[in-house]
């Protein structure tokens, strides 16, 4: 049996809850005819498929809205430092180093530390003319933002870091760094080029241990790690 135009119309209106009481009674009585009931139920099942298609469409809209919100939130939370002069964990480490340097300086100038004592403690220390402090200056450029197969946001970051001979200012950026090359500048300063790919990680950057000679006393440069050990002893 094929549905007539008026049958389709009444079934559509039944589905959309638009039937009058009279039409509802007529439909109920027609549903008692097996032939009509079979095709009518089959028709209503097809409408259910359309409903499910509509739900799927709505689900994908809601998912994309959710992903947009999450990626915007993630992007907002992630604020790469252009100058690396924040006061996060790196800032605390800087503060500790500065306090230690100040303490050592105070010990030296107050006479509690003298060149003989240093020389005895560090027989291999070198004579230097200048004391260098290092500063990390990092330009971070967020170059791309893609999605993984699972829908996670992947932020690709490329950083160029130039170590210059100034005060140590570790960055508070929380990233995984991979040092890919270490060229020299014209002045023979060490330039470390960092390339970082970040996949939504929040980890601490431990400042490089390669800080060189940081402390000078009576023409002797003492590597900072050793000077710390010296005072601990």
């Amino acid at each position, binding site marked *: 049996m094929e549905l007539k*135009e008026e049958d*389709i119309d009444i079934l*559509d209106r039944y*589905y*959309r*809850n638009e039937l009058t009481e009279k039409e509802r009674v007529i439909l109920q009585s027609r549903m008692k005819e097996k032939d009509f009931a079979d095709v009518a139920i*089959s*028709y209503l*099942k*097809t*409408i*259910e*498929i*359309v*409903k*499910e*298609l*509509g*739900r*799927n*469409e*709505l*689900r994908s809209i*809601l*998912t994309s809205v*959710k992903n947009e919100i999450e990626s915007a939130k993630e992007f907002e939370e992630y604020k790469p430092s252009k100058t690396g002069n924040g006061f996060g964990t790196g800032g605390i480490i800087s503060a500790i180093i500065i306090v230690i340097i100040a303490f050592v300086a105070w010990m030296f100038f107050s006479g509690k530390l003298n060149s003989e004592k240093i020389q005895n403690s560090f027989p291999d220390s070198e004579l230097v003319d200048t004391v260098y402090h290092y500063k990390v200056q990092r330009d971070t450029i967020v170059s791309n933002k893609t999605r993984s197969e699972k829908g996670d946001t992947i932020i690709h970051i490329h950083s160029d870091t130039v170590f210059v001979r100034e005060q140590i200012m570790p960055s508070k950026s929380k990233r995984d760094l991979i040092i890919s090359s270490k060229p020299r500048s014209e002045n023979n300063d060490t330039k470390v080029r960092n390339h970082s790919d970040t996949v939504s990680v929040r980890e601490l950057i431990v400042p490089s241990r390669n800080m060189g000679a940081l402390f000078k006393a009576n023409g002797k440069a003492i590597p900072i790690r050793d000077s710390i050990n010296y005072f601990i002893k």
Partner: protein
Amino acid sequence: MIRNLVEKNSGTADDASDLFQEVLIIIYEKVLDNRLQLTCSLKTYIYSIARNKWLNKLKAQKRYTSFNNFESFISIEEETESAPTINLDNLLNEIGEACRKLLILFYYKKRSMQEICKELNYSNADSVKNQKYKCMQRLKKMADNSK
């Protein structure tokens, strides 16, 4: 609220996210059908739907032992949801964009023929009706074949 409900009742944050999405869909459909009648706060209503759905899911997966509630809730009329027995993705590809839009507008979003005519740039409501009939025939045929 929903995350708390799910995580304290054998679910994960992802489950909570999916559940919230399903709750939004239910509310959207109720609004379309003019069946949304609030007798409590929207928060209680949302929680009640979420609670019902999560409870049913736990029971269906036989993970239900006891249920911890964190908010007041009301009794919600059970939504009958028949799981589709055919592959909707295939249908979606085969039915064509024009038919998919038209049928979803008419049957899911409950738009009138006149509104669809305007939205999809048909010449008149009768053309929409004819096209809808053809699309339904095509969909029915595809659904029958995929069984």
